[in-house]
């Protein structure tokens, strides 16, 4: 089990994820301008391929890394005797709960090279956020999540997100609320069983 403080964000990883493709693209532009000033196949490759690869990297690279690390974490947990009673995959975080032994495992999208296996007793607070805003007929939400604090670090796990606002009685919002309520219950049970 990890005893160190949970870090949701690995700043060097985040910066290199964003800036490295931009730097490579800028370098290729410079080389293309310097050595293929009059155009040609070399210029076309240096000016078109790196930006396209960068966009692909920004769109898919992080998801692929996170997915791979999440799979690795699950395999490690299985080998270590951790019972993954309940796994919840979110866009920015995966929470795995071993209710039997009162343990949780965490891995974050922006810190995928570090995973945390903690006793659930380190959770100090568990709550839900239905994202409800607006009044009267305009009441709605675009995000539902459950939250918990580990060592006073707040961890938000989305159960539903959208770029639109949905009515509070819409199927999407109700499903998101139900998932949040369920996971809050699972975490509470694990915390109660943790020594």
């Amino acid at each position, binding site marked *: 089990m990890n005893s160190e403080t949970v870090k949701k964000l690995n700043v060097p990883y985040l910066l290199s994820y964003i800036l490295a493709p931009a730097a490579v693209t800028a370098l290729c532009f410079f080389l293309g301008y310097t050595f293929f000033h009059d155009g040609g196949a070399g210029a076309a490759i240096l000016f078109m391929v790196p930006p396209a690869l960068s966009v692909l990297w920004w769109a898919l690279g992080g998801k692929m890394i996170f997915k791979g690390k999440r799979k690795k974490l699950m395999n490690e947990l299985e080998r270590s005797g951790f019972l993954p009673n*309940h796994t919840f995959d*979110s866009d920015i975080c995966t929470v795995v709960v071993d209710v039997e032994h009162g343990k949780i495992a965490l891995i974050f999208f922006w810190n995928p090279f570090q995973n945390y296996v903690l006793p659930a007793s380190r959770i100090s607070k568990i709550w839900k956020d239905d994202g409800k805003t607006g009044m009267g007929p305009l009441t*709605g939400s675009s995000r539902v999540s459950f939250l918990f604090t580990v060592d006073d670090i707040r961890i938000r796990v989305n159960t*539903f*997100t959208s770029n639109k606002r949905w009515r509070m009685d819409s199927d999407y919002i109700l*499903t*998101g609320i139900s998932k949040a309520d369920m996971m809050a219950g699972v975490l509470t049970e694990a915390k109660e069983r943790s020594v």
Partner: protein
Amino acid sequence: MGFLRKIRAVFHENWCNLCQSEMDVMHKQLYALPDLTVGHYSSHESPEYYRKHLVPVTKKAEIPAGIYACGLHAYRCPQCGHRRVQLTVFLPVREEEKTEEILFFDHGELDDLIYPRDCAGADLNQGNRRRQDSYESRLGGFYDYE
């Protein structure tokens, strides 16, 4: 008049589908359906499935979050004696209900549930069962209110 009443009967679940009379509620019961959890709903039409997996509860608060529920209404027509069981499958979410489907059984398929002969059935406690859930994201075009 008879034709109009038949059309109206389509919109009244508690009307007899044979003689279009209003039926009496003979039995009502709320059940938990622990086999179905939020995000993993699948439609079942077989009465055998419900006989096997429904767990009677007295109120919605007894059903753990994220577990589906079923409301059973057993009707009997006072005119022709026809019996019909209505099963509403829904997800209880705080004060709301997300209805998934409404099923009707006209041939006493769920009599074992209504008049149980033994108490062996599904268990509300799911024990060491493993669950895998994920968030849902809905992305649309223009930002509007739906």
